[in-house]
């Protein structure tokens, strides 16, 4: 393995137990860490692998060893038919959108590089994602599914799951979950102890 996050993961685990974090918050964050392991239920293994790769690239992670595999969360919510309250009217229902869109990613990859998406080099994979985002991707899929919208939805959902993962939150210096005592120093250039702790010990974890 290139990156060993087990040290950091233990630190995060310990951090979540501190008294600055309320019980409901701790519970939610610990459950989230658990959810990131497990099995795919909605996607078959191949689609899941493709989705995992795409999600990792979107979040600048090494596909072989990300901080966290966001595909688990997307798979989980689709398998439970959960919804965020809306979708674009000109898009198919979420599950259908993902299945079609993932097929489209492979189709575009084949047309551009004559190989499936998951076996391409990283730079090639990024190119595939870019043309889909820009709406100039080749492939029959995109005749009946807006590539621009598909990409926007995939990116938004991946973003939301990624930046709600505890390790990632601490990595970008977010200490907001540690609010059990409330915040007294809320003006410019004012930091409280727990915020300084996060900044010093967690911000910008290498990897």
């Amino acid at each position: 393995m290139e990156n060993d996050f087990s040290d950091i993961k233990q630190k995060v685990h310990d951090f979540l137990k501190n008294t600055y974090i309320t019980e409901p918050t701790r519970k939610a964050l610990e459950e989230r860490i658990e959810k990131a392991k497990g099995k795919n239920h909605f996607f078959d293994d191949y689609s899941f692998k493709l989705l995992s790769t795409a999600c990792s690239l979107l979040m600048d992670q090494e596909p072989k060893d990300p901080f966290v595999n966001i595909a688990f969360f997307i798979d989980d919510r689709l398998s439970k038919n959960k919804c965020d309250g809306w979708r674009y009217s000109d898009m198919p229902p979420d599950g259908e959108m993902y299945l079609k869109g993932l097929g489209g990613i492979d189709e575009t990859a084949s047309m551009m590089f004559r190989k499936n998406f998951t076996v391409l080099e990283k730079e090639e994979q990024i190119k595939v994602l870019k043309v889909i985002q820009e709406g100039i991707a080749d492939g029959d899929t995109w005749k009946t599914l807006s590539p621009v919208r598909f990409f926007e939805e995939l990116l938004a959902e991946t973003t939301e799951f990624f930046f709600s993962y505890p390790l990632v939150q601490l990595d970008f210096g977010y200490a907001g979950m540690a609010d059990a005592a409330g915040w007294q120093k809320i003006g410019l250039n004012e930091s409280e102890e727990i915020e300084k702790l996060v900044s010093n010990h967690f911000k910008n974890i290498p990897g």
Partner: protein
Amino acid sequence: MRKYLNTEVVDAVVIGTGAGGAPIISRLAKAGLKVVALEAGGQWDPQNDFATDELEQSKIFWNFERLSAGEDPLAFGRNNSGIGVGGTTLAYTAYTPRSRPDDFKIETEFGVGKDWPVNYEDLEPYYDELELFLGVSGPSPYPWGPPRKRGYPLPPNTLNGAAQLMERGCRQLNIKTSPAANAILSAPYFQEFVGWRNACTNRGFCQAGCSTGAKASTDVTFIPLAIHFGAEIRTESFATTIETGENGKITGVVYLKNGVEERQLCKYLFLCAGAIETPRLLLINNLANSSGQVGKNFMANIGVQVWGEFEELVHPYKGIPASLISEDMNRPEDADFAGGYLLQSIGVMPLTYASQLTRATGVWGKELRNKMNAYNHVAGINMHGECLPHENNFLELSDENDQMGLPKPRIHFTLGENEKRIGSHGEKLMKQIWTNAGAKNMFVYYRNAHTIGTCRMGNDADTSVVDAEGRSFDIPNLYICDNSIFPSSLNTNPALTIMALALRTADKFLGKY
């Protein structure tokens, strides 16, 4: 809590426990009427249920799927709709400016849009009552609008980093700013039938569920009062069918309680389910629409945001998300549009920021990670402005059903010329303010807030759904009271005005009952 039999013909059923429903439930119950409220969601226990985590808190948003259409399709769910006892007040920012007299007379002033059949003077006593009841914290005297009989009961909340930046940026342009009026306690406050409510702890989670009771959502203000006076709040009760008798009057409401159909008989129905669910229910039941206006005139406040990164540490998740205001742009001198807008400082929770960032700019990969590394230095400013009604903007029933077996609503929304001009004016000004304040790497996020206007009130039965007292022109024992009855969007955040209308509706009703 008192319970009523389904077979008892109660005086009133109220659908929805948010800003429209809760004041009515409590006013009617206090007057001795038998009231049953139907709430689609559950009763939250904020201290034990609410986490400081946006993803976990998505449970308080209306998550039944809506279809969004038009050229500027709106986001729903987290953007504008709550579920559970408290309705969308569970997720509102608790920004409670009063509307100003000219807000209600857009048509008279500009020849476009629609006037309200009520005036500021009609709502003024209710604004007074609400600010005291809810415990609104704000500056006294308030710098804008007509003089008031009394000041705010509590001093303003402390300004956070974003507010300080907006103050700095506006000062250079001679734009007057002030701490905002928020229905968020700046000090402990005694709430009848609740006890002492805590002062705000600055956790900045107003839009994802207040866990401390400092924010005046209806569940910690009106609802306990209502229960004390004998109202029944029936949770997990999703209204599906409004039943009428031979003379066309409503006889009862059928709802699904934990999946099982039940029926409550009633003399009067108050429909307060919000500007999406209220018209949806009426369209599904084919009721109260001889004007053809149910679902029409959909509006959403233009709410463009400008974000920037600052040298200073901001920690934008702390403090009240919207703590500074300027109402100087209510009627800008150089306006090429009807109406105007408010300016507000904005803090933001990380998930909301990240998601808006990607939707607005399309940034991903290393660039996205770098932008998020700057999160602690980020602050935003937004506008909140007038939206006119348009033919293109409306709600209809789609032919796709949701998990309750009901047709999903499809909402069409396209910015009209007036909205584009207001948006453009505000964007330019906000960029100037933010540049003055020291912002770098600015980006603009076009967004519309709230859901408004789909069962509008008026004096004319041909062009309105309800009259000036919220009563249906078609069905004498049906009242509607929520954001759907607004004939114009107002440029102010709607919650205080919805509650004022609700109290007024209840009083007018009781006067006749």
